[in-house]
């Protein structure tokens, strides 16, 4: 019983690695920061407005770049966080690290789905179809499939230690797969995605970079909360068992 209480306590205190357990200043700062970013993203001229190649009626669709790209970025951050905890599990063999890895992977997959959907909406407006077999579209779906396999693998194993070991070893594969599908494969063939966006005006840069920052902070806050829930639930399950 004493052991289980320690686990519940750990479940609460473990995420303090990623932030304090109280509602700290950076969480409150996120409210006006994200609000200002949203306001800026709708009030600035769009990054591609002056490009003759893009029809004027499509300009507003480019505002999605302030959300779509940071969500794809958070996907990569989440998957690398998951890989990091997976590798740590192989060293420590603590179930908490396995739980952290799967929680980060779950959030990464949620952001990956959001990035895919927001990209598809833009693709429909800009390129005429939700799905164009663009290298970036294919690569993000490959990532989704890789992590769908990760969750399937976890679901197929009932023993805690075997599930943790297999997941962590599978994460080692993702060390190579994530950078390949995000950074290398999309650059290997011509893409409908713009090679570079005109972010020369400083307001665009400020909003774009603050969006990256806001989404990253939001991810770590969500990860902290999800970890508290999962670790406490897992500790309780172990108490019942």
């Amino acid at each position, binding site marked *: 019983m004493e052991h289980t209480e320690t686990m519940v306590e750990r479940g609460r205190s473990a995420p303090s690695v990623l932030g304090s357990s109280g509602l700290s200043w950076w969480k409150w700062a996120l409210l006006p920061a994200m609000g200002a970013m949203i306001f800026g993203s709708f009030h600035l001229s769009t990054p591609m407005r002056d490009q003759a190649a893009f029809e004027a009626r499509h300009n507003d669709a480019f505002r999605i770049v302030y959300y779509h790209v940071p969500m794809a970025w958070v996907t990569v951050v989440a998957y690398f966080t998951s890989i990091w905890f997976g590798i740590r599990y192989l060293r420590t063999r603590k179930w908490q690290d396995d739980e952290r890895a799967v929680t980060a992977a779950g959030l990464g997959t949620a952001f990956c789905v959001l990035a895919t959907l927001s990209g598809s909406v833009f693709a429909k407006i800009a390129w005429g179809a939700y799905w164009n077999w663009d290298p970036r579209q294919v690569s993000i779906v490959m990532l989704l499939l890789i992590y769908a396999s990760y969750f399937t693998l976890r679901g197929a194993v009932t023993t805690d230690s075997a599930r943790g070991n297999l997941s962590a070893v599978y994460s080692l594969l993702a060390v190579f797969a994530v950078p390949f599908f995000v950074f290398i494969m999309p650059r290997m063939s011509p893409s409908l995605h713009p090679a570079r966006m005109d972010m020369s005006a400083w307001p665009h840069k400020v909003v774009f970079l603050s969006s990256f920052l806001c989404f990253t902070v939001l991810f770590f806050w969500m990860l902290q*909360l999800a970890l508290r829930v999962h670790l406490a639930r897992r500790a309780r399950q172990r108490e019942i068992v």
Partner: protein
Amino acid sequence: MNGNYIAMAVALLGWVGLFFYLVRLDRRFRDGEHEG
């Protein structure tokens, strides 16, 4: 442009809603209500 204002209002409201939901979760788990 009106569409932009509506979209911005929806995005801002959605963000404020998500933020206070996260605040509520944060306080709830800090206070240990989840154990009840």
